[in-house]
């Protein structure tokens, strides 16, 4: 009997984009998409795309086949749809687009009222994140006031703030937010990543970093680490 496992499930977050459809005027749609891709071709190349139908849920007959072809023609990878109406879902599935969780109108997560949603946006963790643990702040920021051990992983769709020693993996903007940042103090991370762009521990150690608060952000597809200098008021101004 074969004892070695044949596969392994890994928790993973691949950067993907949510394409919110605002109009089904496909001619204009194609023009605008061509413009967008021209500006940042490497961003769109093989980019997994989730089609969000929330803003167009009133339109029942969406030509999903054509939409799919448009995306593929621009080298993107349509994953499926989210949000929208049941009729749209049936049509999407008939066109081999899967129904994905998320989206405000979707049955997967009905968020009752706006207020609750706002409170949920930031996730706060006050106890150590130990080896083997994974913490994910979906749709928002993550604040950790304790340590993140080697072998632990913290992720957020938004920014990640870490106030204890950082020795594990930290990923901000995991669903593709290029503006997301990581804020931390003691940086001994195994990996830091913004929207899928990353630095390994060795990369981090090459930059002789002094103690103190740092921010990590994306600039022209490069992950930068920068000391946050306290703003000193010049003497003559006091």
């Amino acid at each position: 009997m074969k004892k070695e496992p044949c596969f392994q499930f890994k928790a993973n977050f691949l950067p993907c984009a949510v394409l919110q459809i605002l109009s089904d005027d496909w001619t204009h749609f194609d023009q605008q998409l061509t413009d967008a891709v021209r500006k940042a071709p490497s961003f769109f190349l093989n980019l997994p795309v989730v089609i969000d139908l929330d803003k167009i849920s009133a339109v029942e007959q969406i030509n999903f086949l054509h939409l799919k072809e448009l995306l593929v023609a621009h080298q993107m990878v349509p994953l499926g749809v989210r949000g929208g109406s049941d009729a749209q879902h049936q049509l999407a599935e008939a066109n081999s687009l899967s129904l994905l969780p998320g989206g405000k109108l979707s049955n997967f997560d009905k968020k009752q009222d706006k207020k609750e949603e706002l409170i949920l946006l930031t996730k706060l963790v006050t106890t150590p994140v130990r080896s083997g643990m994974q913490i994910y702040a979906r749709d928002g920021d993550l604040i950790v006031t304790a340590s993140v051990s080697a072998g632990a992983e913290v992720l957020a769709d938004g920014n990640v703030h870490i106030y204890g020693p950082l020795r594990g993996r930290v990923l901000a903007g995991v669903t593709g937010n290029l503006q997301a940042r990581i804020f931390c103090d003691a940086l001994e991370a195994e990996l830091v990543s913004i929207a899928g762009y990353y630095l390994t521990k060795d990369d981090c150690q090459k930059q002789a970093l002094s103690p103190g608060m740092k921010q990590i952000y994306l600039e022209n597809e490069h992950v930068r680490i920068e000391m946050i200098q306290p703003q000193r008021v010049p003497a003559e101004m006091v």
Partner: protein
Amino acid sequence: MTKTIVITSGKGGVGKTTTSASFAVGLATRGYKTAVVDFDIGLRNLDLIMGCERRVVYDFVNVIRKEANLNQALIRDKHIKELFILPASQTRDKDALTVEGVAEVLAELSKTFDYIVCDSPAGIERGAQLAMYFADSAIVVTNPEVSSVRDSDRMLGLLSSKTKRAEDGRDKITEHLLLTRYSPKRVARGDMLSLSDVNEILAIPLLGVIPESQAVLRASNSGDPVILDKDSDAGQAYLDAVARFLGENVSHRFIEEERNWLKRLLNFKKEVV
């Protein structure tokens, strides 16, 4: 109120069983009625260390399967009358333990015992999780090396999420760090992590440091837990740890390398100048 203590580590061979045996003896010597339970089904080590292997008739699994009652399976310690051992089965596999079965046995032990010491198997699988599931306190046994520290860190993560206390939202398990097989000489040489290295990573209260000691091997061979060897360094370190566990204020020993007086004097002078 009965207190259930799990002796855990993640990594194997770090000194969990040695610690379970000595801790149980230490608590019982202080007059607390103590049961020590071997959760390492299939290996059965605890009864050897406790020197009662020849008296094992029924075991933990027999009790869970209702093939014997608890009193038939409990073995009274040869030295201390307050101490009882519930041995593991050597012939069954790990799946023989069930949550309900363990819950029932621990509940019954709680009727008569002050302390229940659970000797956890290695790993992070079912057996180890069952050993910690009902615990009130955890003694995390760690050796001063990177892989052991990492595994202990992982156990601390499980202790904060995968235990009954955590699930019920009660006060969290009290965590204690026991650093074992510590050799100040090897720390000085840089072969081992130092106490402060380990403390910085795990950041939980230190219960004690047990030195690497020949006395442990001698104790295992004779079937008398090392805490009974009161002249040995490891025996004294375990006595100290039990005292600290019971809330006594005992300063830490066996942390520094022994230096000769001349070296000490020279160092002292240097500091004065």
